[in-house]
C-alpha cells in the first residue's frame, strides 16, 4: 500500500477545558471541517476507522455529518495506541477498494467517563488490573513511572533528560498559537521544582488534559491529485502488540523496556524507502515524557538505552536539533487528544504549514501510544 493513499483533509475544533458540546458533536465538527479542507462533500465519504473508545459511534457520526453509504468501518482499541492505527486502517480499506474515501478522528472530553478509564473503577478489580491496582498503582502516570524508574536504573535516564523533552515541546508550543501552553514558558528550574505526581515523574512529565476533536480524510493517491491540498502520502504503516505484552503494566514479560515500539518499528522500516537517519521530523506519542526516549530507541533513532542521552544538546528542538520532535507542542504542551493532534501535525509538516516547519521535510513520522498496543505512520510528500 506504499504511497497509494494520502491524507487530503485535516480538521479540528478549538482546544479547551469544559467545552459545552458533547463528544459526538465535537467529532462531527472536526470531521466536517476535515472534509471541507479536502474539498470534498460529506456524501463522498464511504469509509470510517475509529477509536473503540469513541463516545460517538460510527452510525451517529455518519447520520450527523451526512456521510454517504458506508462500505467499510472498523475500530482500533487501546486509547492512545490507536491514532495511527485508525489512519492506517482507513488507508488499507481505500487501498484494497473496500471504500474510496475514509475519515478517522478522535474526540475527547477530559470530564467524560469514557475518556478516563482509570477513574471509572469500582472497588473490586478483575483482569490484569487486579495485579497492580490494589497496591496503589492507580493512574497511567503510576504505571509509566514504574518503567521510568527501571529505565533510570538500567539505562541511566535522568530527570535532566526528561526535562529536555518537556522544555523542547514547550518551546514548540510557545510558537504555536493554538497550543494550550502557547503563552506559558517553562524553565528547567520550574521543571526541577515542580510537584511530584508519581516519583520519579513530576507535573511537567505529564501530558495535558484537553477537550477537543481532530479528524483526517484519507483517499487514494489518484483522487488526491485532483484535490486542493498537498497530499500527505501514507508511505508506511504498522501496528504492534509485542509478544507477552500487558497493557500499561507491562512488567510481566522478559524485557519490559522493549515496548510495543520495537515490533511496530520493524515492519514500519521494512516497508519504507526511508530509514530513521532519513527522517527530518517526528511526532512521538507523549502522554508522559519518558515515552520519548523509549520511543527514540524503539523506532531506531538511537541504540537501546541511549534514548535519554539522545535528548541532550537540544536534539528534539526546532529548528537546529537532530530530530525536531512534537513540533506543535505535542500532548504535553499543545493538547492531549489521545495523540491525534500528532497525526495532524505530521500532515502539516508535509504540507509546509507547521508553526515550527522543518524546511522541505521529505517525510514525517507519527507514532501512537508506547506502553499499549500501538501504531505508527510515515507520511511523505
Amino acid at each position: 500500500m506504499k504511497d497509494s493513499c494520502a491524507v487530503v483533509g485535516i480538521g479540528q475544533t478549538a482546544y479547551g477545558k469544559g467545552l459545552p458540546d458533547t463528544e459526538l458533536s465535537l467529532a462531527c465538527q472536526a470531521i466536517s471541517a476535515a472534509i471541507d479542507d479536502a474539498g470534498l462533500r460529506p456524501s463522498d465519504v464511504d469509509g470510517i476507522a475509529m477509536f473503540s473508545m469513541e463516545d460517538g459511534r460510527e452510525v451517529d457520526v455518519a447520520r450527523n455529518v451526512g456521510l454517504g453509504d458506508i462500505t467499510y468501518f472498523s475500530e482500533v482499541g487501546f486509547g492512545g495506541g490507536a491514532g495511527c492505527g485508525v489512519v492506517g486502517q482507513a488507508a488499507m480499506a481505500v487501498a484494497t477498494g473496500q471504500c474510496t474515501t475514509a475519515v478517522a478522528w478522535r474526540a475527547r472530553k477530559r470530564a467524560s467517563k469514557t475518556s478516563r478509564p482509570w477513574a471509572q473503577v469500582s472497588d473490586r478489580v478483575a483482569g490484569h488490573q487486579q495485579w497492580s491496582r490494589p497496591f496503589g498503582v492507580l493512574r497511567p502516570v503510576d504505571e509509566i513511572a514504574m518503567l521510568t524508574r527501571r529505565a533510570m536504573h538500567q539505562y541511566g535516564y535522568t530527570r535532566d533528560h526528561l526535562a529536555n523533552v518537556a522544555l523542547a515541546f514547550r518551546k514548540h508550543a510557545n510558537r504555536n498559537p493554538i497550543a494550550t501552553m502557547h503563552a506559558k514558558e517553562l524553565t528547567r528550574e520550574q521543571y526541577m521544582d515542580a510537584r511530584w505526581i508519581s516519583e520519579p515523574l513530576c507535573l511537567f512529565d505529564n501530558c495535558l488534559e484537553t477537550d477537543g476533536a481532530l479528524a483526517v480524510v484519507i483517499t487514494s493517491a489518484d483522487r488526491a491529485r485532483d484535490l486542493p491540498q498537498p497530499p500527505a502520502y501514507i508511505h508506511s504503516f504498522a501496528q504492534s502488540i509485542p509478544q507477552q505484552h500487558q497493557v500499561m503494566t507491562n512488567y510481566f514479560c522478559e524485557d519490559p523496556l522493549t515496548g510495543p515500539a520495537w515490533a511496530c518499528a520493524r515492519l514500519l522500516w521494512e516497508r519504507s524507502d526511508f530509514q530513521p537517519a532519513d527522517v527530518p521530523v517526528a511526532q512521538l506519542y507523549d502522554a508522559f515524557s519518558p515515552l520519548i526516549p523509549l520511543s527514540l530507541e524503539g523506532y531506531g533513532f538511537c541504540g537501546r538505552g541511549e534514548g535519554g542521552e539522545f535528548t541532550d544538546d537540544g536534539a528534539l528542538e526546532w529548528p537546529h536539533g537532530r530530530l525536531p520532535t512534537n513540533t506543535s507542542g505535542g500532548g504535553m504542551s499543545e493538547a492531549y487528544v489521545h495523540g491525534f493532534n500528532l497525526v495532524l501535525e505530521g500532515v502539516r509538516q508535509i504540507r509546509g504549514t507547521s508553526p515550527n516547519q522543518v524546511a522541505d521535510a521529505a517525510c514525517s513520522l507519527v507514532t501512537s501510544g508506547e506502553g499499549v498496543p500501538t501504531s505508527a505512520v510515515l507520511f511523505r510528500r
Partner: protein
Amino acid sequence: MSDDFLLPDLDDETSAPFWHGTARGELLVQSCGACGAWRMPPRPMCPHCQSISVTWVPTSGHATIWSFIVPHAPLLPAYSELAPYNAIVVALDEDPSIRFVGNLVATETGPINEIDPATIAIGEPVRVVFQTVEDVALPRWVRR
C-alpha cells in the same frame, strides 16, 4: 469512583487460586501441567506449549526489588490518605521473569507509607508478607 481500597474480584475464576493461596499464607504461581513453565499473572493457556493443564505451585516468597514509585495525591481517596506511599515491582529469586507488584513495608503489619522512599533501592532483597484487607490477603514485602 470508589472511596475504598481497590481489591481483587475473588470470583475471577482464573486468578482465584492465587488469592486462596495468599489467604493461607502462600505465594503461588501457575505452573504448566505439560511443560512446567511458570507464569504470572495467571491465564488459561501456556504460551510455550498451548496446554490448558495448570497446577499451582508455592514459591520461596523471596525476591528482589525491580522498580519502585512514590505516588502523590490526587489519588482515589483511600490511597490519597496514605500518600505519598511506595509501590514496588519485585522479581522472584527462582525465576526473575516472574514479577509481582506490591508495596515495601517495615513490618508484617506495617503501612505502605512507613519506609522513607529515599532508602529504597532497586536490587534490594525482600520477602513476602501477607496483609489482610477486608476479605483479601495482599502480598506485600519486607526487607530481608
